[in-house]
């Protein structure tokens, strides 16, 4: 793998590139615009029920968290089982801002996101020098400790009885658009992160920390930066989530189940890819609504079985399945597969 210098556009002249977003291929940009346009036209054209709209809004938020988790878990290869910590911090900080001062919702969401990003740095800066499994276990501790501490901080989180947020009429409807906007930003950011020199740096760190450091990529800086961004994005999503439900409590926001779902969505779709987490989040929400709503006592086991089966048979999840079918039918060239998830979970390692 080569780490190209900072002139991505000039290095490969034969790939056609849009002038606005030099990292995004034209096909991907068109695809994104079409999907966003469809999602935007959907409420007006088909008049969905409140339940359906609710589900789609939640799916937008879950896609955002899955993509944000994937920056760390997929691009950098540092699997976090504690991302609910930032989700919760984002939610509660934004709730507190909204309850104490009168500012537009967006400010509170961004405020919550920034605090969540800083919180991620607080625990992440020392622990990110751990690689792989060591880091993951540390994040389990982070998640558990955050849940306990924030549940006890009743003055801040309202303890087990939770917090009620200010309610504004029409906010739920507007959050559909905000969610869609955030989703579009997250997809673009994922592409940008992947194709920029920062993304290449992350890939280099994932492949070999020492070698990356030797060629002048500071692992500390890159890892901290991507963790901050990931925490920021998850925090903003948590803040959206809080405003959307207008009631939050620490057991849910900081729960182990939230962390698991972030991991699971990426694994279902394909860790390290961009389309993967999006698909994974959609499958996850559908699965949860159809299957797990009827058997709530089985959800942990189902998540576990899904993890085991996917890792055993198709470590790259749905994307792996797609590539496998594509290879069989000759529709997808092998180079595309190698490019889609470089150094992924091992399935398509060069």
């Amino acid at each position, binding site marked *: 793998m080569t780490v190209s210098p900072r002139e991505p556009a000039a290095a490969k002249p034969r790939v056609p590139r849009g002038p606005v977003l030099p990292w995004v291929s034209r096909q991907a940009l068109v695809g994104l615009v079409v999907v966003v346009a469809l999602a935007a036209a959907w409420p007006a054209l088909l008049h969905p029920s409140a339940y359906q709209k609710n589900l789609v809004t939640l799916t937008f938020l879950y896609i955002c968290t899955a993509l944000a988790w994937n920056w760390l878990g997929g691009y950098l290869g540092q*699997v976090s*089982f504690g991302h609910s910590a930032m989700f919760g911090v984002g939610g509660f900080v934004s709730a507190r801002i909204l309850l104490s001062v009168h500012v537009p919702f967006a400010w509170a969401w961004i405020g919550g996101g920034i605090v969540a990003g800083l919180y991620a740095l607080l625990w992440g800066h*020392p*622990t990110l020098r*751990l690689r792989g499994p060591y880091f993951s276990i540390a994040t389990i501790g982070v998640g558990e400790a955050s849940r306990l501490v924030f549940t006890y901080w009743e003055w801040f989180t309202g303890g087990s009885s939770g917090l009620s947020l200010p309610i504004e009429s029409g906010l739920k409807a507007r959050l559909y658009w905000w969610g869609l906007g955030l989703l579009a930003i997250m997809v673009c950011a994922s592409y940008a992160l992947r194709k920029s020199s920062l993304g290449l740096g992350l890939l280099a760190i994932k492949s070999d920390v020492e070698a990356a450091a030797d060629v002048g990529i500071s692992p500390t800086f890159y890892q901290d930066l991507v963790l901050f961004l990931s925490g920021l994005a998850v925090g903003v999503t948590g803040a959206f989530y809080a405003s959307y439900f207008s009631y939050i409590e620490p057991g849910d926001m900081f729960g182990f189940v939230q962390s698991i779902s972030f991991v699971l969505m990426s694994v279902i779709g394909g860790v390290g890819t961009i389309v993967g987490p999006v698909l994974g989040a959609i499958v996850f929400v559908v699965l949860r609504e159809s299957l797990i709503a009827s058997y709530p006592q089985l959800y942990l086991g189902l998540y*576990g079985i899904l993890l085991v089966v996917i890792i055993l048979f198709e470590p790259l999840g749905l994307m792996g399945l797609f590539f496998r079918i594509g290879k069989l039918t000759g529709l997808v060239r092998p180079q595309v597969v190698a490019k889609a998830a470089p150094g992924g979970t091992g399935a398509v390692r060069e």
Partner: protein
Amino acid sequence: MQHFAELFIASVLLAGLYAAMAFGLGLIYGVLRIVNLAHGGVIMAGAYAGWWLYETVGLDPYLSLIPVAAAAFLFGVVIYRLLVRRLPRGAAGGVQSLLLLFGVWLILRNIAYLLFTGNDQTLRTSYSTKALSLANASISVNRVAVFFIALAILLFLHLLLRKTYLGKAIRAVAQNPDSCTLVGIPIERIYALTFGIGTALAAAGGLLGATLFPFSPSFGSAELLKSFVVVVLGGLGSIAGTAIAALILAMVEIFSILIPGFPVYLTAAVGFVLLVLVLVLRPGGLFGQRVLG
């Protein structure tokens, strides 16, 4: 001073339990280079197995250590044969084995919820509330028993790894699996046995823990983190290192209550803070990361 001595004894007794819990995690990592995330789940399962045997058959928890550890050993071997063996080794398999074993943990947790509900359970025997008095201090009989059993387990492991053919083979595979195949060590069998032993240790640790603390299906995640702190602090495979690291963790946890105004709920975060301190001050562990040396 009296207070101090009591706390010190309490931490020594607790350290035995931590060392027994942690050693299985370190052993599996040292030999297979896999962090067994199902460790926490097996700790929980061991606790429930001991409790169930006591409630239904009336088997004393310390006697049920043997069947529970044996069952956990078989479970570990099966998990290795069915699942872990199929993953690629080395860096590529790292994330995969992590997610896979995490899935196993979730399944174990769900089974526990289904069988025993999410309520906290306690293992209460006739001697649970008995205490020994030593000078002016009184020490729970259970804590002393747990300490000595944990010590016996560690001693047994030390002899196993040092004196037997199996132990030497395990250490050899940890050092260089490729050379082992050359001299005719069946490494697949050694991997399976090691995974089984590590799992059995986790279950035994969970059972011992159940005699001291209440537990629920989510029991085990804090214990996993503690085991991990001990492994990082003490290095891999060294019994003495593990013991000292466990003692440090137990002392930090117990003595933190002496800090005036220290909120009790923060004890949950003590292990993590200690982990961060170790990483910042001595990233290689206290004694350097020796592999089964």
